[in-house]
């Protein structure tokens, strides 16, 4: 699906991006005037959650395409992207929880942003379980495509939760209308880390698609040999 050369290039670029991201996040960007050094978790937590949105958006588009065209390739893309999205969301929640302890005084609170993000994680964990449980591959792909489309609809709710409800979580500082509330150096560090995590996502997706390709080949050979 994606050539090994492209996969390798994405991997190398992701590692370079992450190293530059660490430099910008820990050296280039100043410490926050209010939170101090702990605010540097923003360069990890925000890219993790934003790239998980990207991963679930890919699931959403691939699921629509699967229901329309029934192409196994787009189903493989949806499955792979959902798996990576779950990993990134779980890590974003963990990083946010670690950030919450020194700033809010608690690891977890049933705040609207945290709760809707936890629901997002549960929806896509259910998506992966559905794929594992339904034996008929075509039916499993159809059911999970429907769940993938519905699951994505939680993302606008997650994003708007800080506007619609009174929350402990701070309002959006990147995906917002009007001027940014973040200092320029911090914004540079944030965008560098965001680009690095997009590259990491691309690399993991290419690698995961190679597994799907091998699985597809295995199924084809089994069918051929069994007649």
């Amino acid at each position, binding site marked *: 699906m994606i050539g090994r050369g492209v996969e390798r290039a994405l991997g190398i670029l992701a590692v370079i991006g992450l190293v530059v991201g660490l430099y910008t996040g820990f050296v280039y960007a100043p410490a926050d005037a209010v939170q*101090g*050094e*702990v605010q*540097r*978790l923003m360069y*990890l*937590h925000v890219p*993790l959650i934003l790239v998980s949105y990207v991963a679930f958006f890919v699931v959403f588009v691939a699921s629509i395409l699967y229901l329309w065209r029934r192409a196994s390739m787009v189903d493989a893309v949806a499955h792979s992207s959902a798996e*990576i999205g779950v*990993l990134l969301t*779980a*890590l974003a929640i*963990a*990083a946010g929880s*670690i*950030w919450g*302890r*020194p700033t809010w005084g608690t690891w977890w609170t049933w705040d609207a942003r945290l709760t809707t993000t936890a629901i997002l994680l549960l929806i896509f964990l259910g998506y992966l379980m559905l794929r594992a449980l339904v034996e008929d591959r075509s039916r499993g792909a159809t059911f999970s495509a429907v769940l993938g489309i519905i699951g994505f609809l939680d993302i606008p709710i997650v994003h708007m939760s800080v506007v619609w409800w009174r929350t402990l979580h701070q309002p959006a500082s990147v995906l917002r209308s009007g001027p940014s509330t973040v200092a320029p150096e911090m914004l540079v560090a944030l965008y560098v880390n965001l680009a690095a995590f997009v590259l*990491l996502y691309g690399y*993991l997706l290419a*690698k*995961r698609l*190679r*597994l799907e390709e*091998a*699985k597809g*080949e*295995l199924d084809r*050979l*089994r069918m*051929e*040999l069994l007649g």
Partner: protein
Amino acid sequence: MNPWPYVLSAYLLTVVGVLWYHVSIGRKTKVVSAQVEALRSQGKGAAR
């Protein structure tokens, strides 16, 4: 409160999580590719 244990533990957790996933996909791909090769050679043997 010293912020560094929090900052470093979050970064470390992310590194471990991503590396675990990376290794896990690599292992699964190796296993499935070996099965594909085995079936291919079995198919060639049957054709002869």
